[in-house]
Structures are given as C-alpha cells and as structure tokens.
C-alpha cells in the first residue's frame, strides 16, 4: 500500500467512450462507501466525440479542492495507450502509473471492460476493502454487463501479483 498518507490523489485519463468517467465514478463510490471524505471532478462536453477526457478522484479524512493539483497524482490510470505520455505530467515523483499494458488485455472477454480491469489493479494499492470496490462496481454498472465487469476487476487484481508498473 503506497497510500498511507492523509489524502489519495488519483487521475483517470483516456478518450471519450472508453469509460474514464465510469471508472472514476466507481473509484469515488468505493472510497465513499469506505467512510472517506471524497471529491471527484471531471471535464466533459466535447469529450463525447472521442477527444481526451480526464477525471480526478481524491479521498481521505478531509478533501478541499475537487481537482488534483498538477503533478501531484499518486496514481495515474490511463485507459488509452496513446494518452499515457500526454498525461504523465500529472503524476508526482514516485507516483504509480497504471496503463493498459499493466493488465493482460488478451484475457479480457469484453474489451470495453478495460477501465474496470485497471480499477482492479488500482484496488490493490489503496486502502479500500475489496468488498467496497465490488459494491461500487455493482452499483455503477448495468446488470447485463455486470459479470463481464466483475471478471475484469478480478483480472486486474490478479495482475498485481504478476507485474507492477512504475
């Protein structure tokens, strides 16, 4: 667990349509269910048309600003491989990058669940119980895609045992 400190800063990034906002909603919900103060912010609008999207989640005992200050993300979760470099500046020194290459994408039955697979990996780093994560996934994913998303989440958690990217 790298999060030990007072507040955890996570930036989610990717392209419109990849589930960036869904991933940040699930993470914020999981932190909320764990009793933390949480703030989540996002920029959407033109992003619906395949442009860059990003969303910040911050949790801890008390959170003021909903935005992660530039260069202060503890975790950067990027869903589009080509968005890794343009977002790297958000990460603090020693922060953890979680990118598509961090999980075995071939093992994903449904490619659209990559966002949740990356959450599975993220979940191994932060002090949120697995059960809260699963509750949050259930609450934020439509019934008919639930099994695929739970499988993706489990796959992401597995990835933590095999490889950790920095």
């Amino acid at each position: 667990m790298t999060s030990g400190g007072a507040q955890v800063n996570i930036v989610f990034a990717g392209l419109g349509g990849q589930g960036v906002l869904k991933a940040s909603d699930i993470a914020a919900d999981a932190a909320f269910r764990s009793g933390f103060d949480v703030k989540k912010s996002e920029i959407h609008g033109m992003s619906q048309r395949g442009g860059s999207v990003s969303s910040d989640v911050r949790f801890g005992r008390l959170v003021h600003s909903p935005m992660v200050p530039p260069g202060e993300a503890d975790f950067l979760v990027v869903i589009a491989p080509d968005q890794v470099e343009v977002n790297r500046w958000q990460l603090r020194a020693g922060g953890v990058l979680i990118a598509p290459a961090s999980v075995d994408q071939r093992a994903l039955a449904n490619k659209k669940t990559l966002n949740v697979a990356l959450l599975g990996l993220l979940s191994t780093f932060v002090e949120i119980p697995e059960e809260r994560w699963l509750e949050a996934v259930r609450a934020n994913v439509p019934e008919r895609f639930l099994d695929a998303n739970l499988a993706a989440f489990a796959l992401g958690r597995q990835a933590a045992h095999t490889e950790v990217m920095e």
Partner: protein
Amino acid sequence: MRADDTILASGDEAVALAARHAGVALGTGYPGTPSTEILEAFSELGGRAQWAPNEKVALEVAIGAAFANARALVTMKHVGLNVAADPLFTAAYTGVSGALVVVSADDPGMASSQNEQDNRHYAVAAGIPMFEPSDSQEAYDFTFQAIEISERWKLPVMLRLTTRVCHSKSVLRPRPAQAPEPPPVSYSKNIRLRVMIPSNARPAHRRLRAKLAEIAQWNEASGPNRELEGERSLGIVSSGIAAVHAREAAPHAAMLKLGMTYPLPLQAVAAFARSVQRCVVIEEGDPWLVEALRAAGIAVEGKPEMYRFGELNVSRVRRILEGDVSPEAAPPPGKPPELCAGCPHRSVFQALKNLDCIVAGDIGCYSLGALAPFEALDTVVCMGAAIGMGLGLRHALPEDQARRVVSVIGDGTFVHSGITGLVEAIYNPPSTGHLLIILDNGTTAMTGMQEHPGTGRTLNHQRTGKLVFEDLARSLGVPSVHVVDPTLNPRAFEELVAECLKRREISVIVARRTCLLATGRIKEMEKADRAVCPVE
C-alpha cells in the same frame, strides 16, 4: 445513502435534490454544459421539468409560475443568461410572488463553451441577490436559502455555479426537513407591481434598491458566510470553488468564505480585512470581488492579470499568494474531439468543402466542421448567429463571393434562435439570395442528446407537439424548400447545394438524418409509440 445519512452527489444533482425537497413546482431551462443535468435529475426525482426552446422563454415561463405564487427553478449555462437577460432585468423590478431561483452555470476555462464570461456581473447589473456554492453540500443548502430569500423579499435570486461545482461529486447530507411548506398557488391581481410601464417601473426600481439594502443587512448578520480560523498574517477572502482551492493552498491562513456575494456583506469583510496583516482576494475569472471591495474602501490585494484567464486550481492559488507571474507550463495537448465516424454532418461538410463555400456556422457538434479534415465552417459566434451573419456576409461581399455564402445550423439551434434569422432572410433578402442548411439530426447532440421542439418529445421523452422545419419555412414564404438525407447520395446532395447557390432566392435545405449515437434510442422510442398506438 451511507450509514451517516450522506450521499455522494454532483453539484447539479444537489440542486435538483434541494429543489425537489423544497417543493419546487416547476423546473424549466435550456440545455447547456455544465447545467444540463440539473433538470434531468429533477425530472428523475419526480419533479416537473421541461426544456424550453431557449433560455429567454424558460425564464419567462418561470417568472409566470412565480407570479402564480409557485416556487420555480430555471437553469442555463452562462451564455444562456445573455439570451434571458431581457426578462431578468425587469423581473428584478416586478419581483415575484412565490420563489424564483435562476441558475447560471459558468464555465471558466471553457471546457465546452464559446467564452468564459463571468456572470457575477449579471447579479450586480440586474440587482438580484447571488449565492455561490463551493461544493455539493452548499449547492444543496444554498438552493434552499435562495428559495427562502426569494420568497421573503419577493425577488428572483441567482444561484451562480461553475463547472467544477456542477460536475464535481462530493459528500452531501440532505436535510429535507429544513424546507418551509410551499405557499398555496393562486393568482392575485396586482397591475401596479407587474405591469412595467414607466409610471409603475419608476417606483419599482426604488423598491428594488430598498430590498437590496435590506438583504445586505441580512447578509451581514445571518448570511451563509463563514470565517475559518487561521493565522492573522494572511487573510483570504474568497467564494465558490476558488475558496476550496484556497483553503488547500494556504491551510494556515485565516479565511472569510462568502456564500452570498451580492449584495456583499461589506462590514463583515472590512472587519476581517482589518483583523489580518495581509488580505488577499482569491476569485476565479474577472477581478470583480476585489474591485467591489476596493471601491468600498477595503484594503485588499487581488491577483495578477494572468490569472483572470482559465480555471484556478490549488497550484495557481499558491502562485497568486506568492505573487508569482512567471509563465505557467502548458499541459501537453490532448486529442481534440472530432465528428463521430459515420456522423451525418460529415456528408454536409464534405459537400460544402468541395464547393468551396463560405460557411456561416453555428454551435453544436457540427462546429467540429471547422477542424480538419473539413475546415469547412468559417464562423462560430453564438447560438443562432449563422443565419444573420450569413445574410450580413451576403449583403457586404462582392457578388462572386456572396454567392458562395451558406448558413449552416443544427436543428436544436435553429429552434433556439434561428427562426428569427430566417424571418430576416425573408424580410431583407440579399440580392444574391441565400441558402440555409438545417442539420436535422433529431436531437441536441452536443449537450448529451436532449429533446427539443423539433423532435416532438418532452424532456422525459414523451410525445408532444412537434415543430416541422419544412412546414415552417414554407409558411414563411421561402420559395425553395428541400428535405434530403445527405448521407444517402452525397453526390446528389452536393448538386442540390450547387443548384441552390445559383438561385437568386432564399433556399432552405433540411438535411435530415439522425445522429449516429441517438439513432438506437430514437428507434426504440418509435417502436414503443407504435406498440401503444398501432394504427397510424
């Protein structure tokens, strides 16, 4: 709901929830990021919510409801208030009988807007009280308070939100019990108060100023302004989202966080400023607060001009406090948005590009026609401007260029403010004629697929009266009206455009093909309609 009775909600959802808990009888508005979700959430919560054709009509509907003693909510993005400004200024004179809360959702940094105007100026200019929440809890609480103040002083009240309040989620404890019972709804005649002919408007203006003076006193004594403990070497005066950035950037500073920023609690601010060694105003956008405080003789520091532009965040506030004016590192550019592959607008822009048209454009998904690979849209100013500007270009340009001018407008935007432009085309036609293309994709795609009068469905997708563009154009006397699907035969579409450009008369082409992302849902709704009423 968590065990401690809290929920995680966005600022938009918080306003909707408070409106519902406070018994708001009618929510009306016009879609626009970042305000759109308020009415959608209000409707989902069981409130009566409706989209108006534009913000001016929305505000007028809300004023009518508030004249009937009801509690009314009207929502719009910042530029929407420009459209609604005419009724706003005079509704401040008439006042209301029930409650009227006007939500203005500003977009500093222009995440999805054509400008970053600071609508705090409107509260001052119109003379209406203004609340500025900084998170979802305050968005919820201040909505209640806005209703209370509106009812008590019988004035419209502005709830000024910004993108990061609207679209940020934070922890919120709903308090439905704090809502006073809504008053009974009925009409009581009062021509003197509601008919703003000069003889009635003159005393009304004086009444407005007297109310504002009373509200300023209330704000001093019981407004939602909080002093946060801190060292007296640095004091910060702030409001809205800027206040939470500032609290984080300077946790040890004393802070006066203003929840109601018009009319300002000037005595409280003056006392605070005297109690600290250095007093800095942290505000996003224009230096409005700092100038108002200085004008009142309060010694405060503002921010360097470079921080007028864009959003604030924690590190920018740190820089302001340090007086740092060194250039800021620009983040690497992300991927720009583009028209979806298969978007029906693409065929139209391909034709306009091939014909080398001068395109007076408008606001919507189709504004992306200005970017590569088309670069076939030459102007975007405000909603509805395509038609008037196209006509102006035609009037002024030499004939060979004038004949290449086309106005292009979305279906939603045409309803919003394009109809009067078409009337102008009939009334003052350019000698070369003109061509208007209405991009009828069956939805308000840009803001997230809202219905509008041209779709014939209400906010919650029920069937209702429908505006038919070609019928309207014909009834106005437009001599050449065409309805085509531009994707079916792109070549024929291009020929039709070329032919219209040759005519010396007004032509309208309704380019009808549903937005790719909305098609599935529209088909489902139509299927459901047929199931309900099979013979049609």
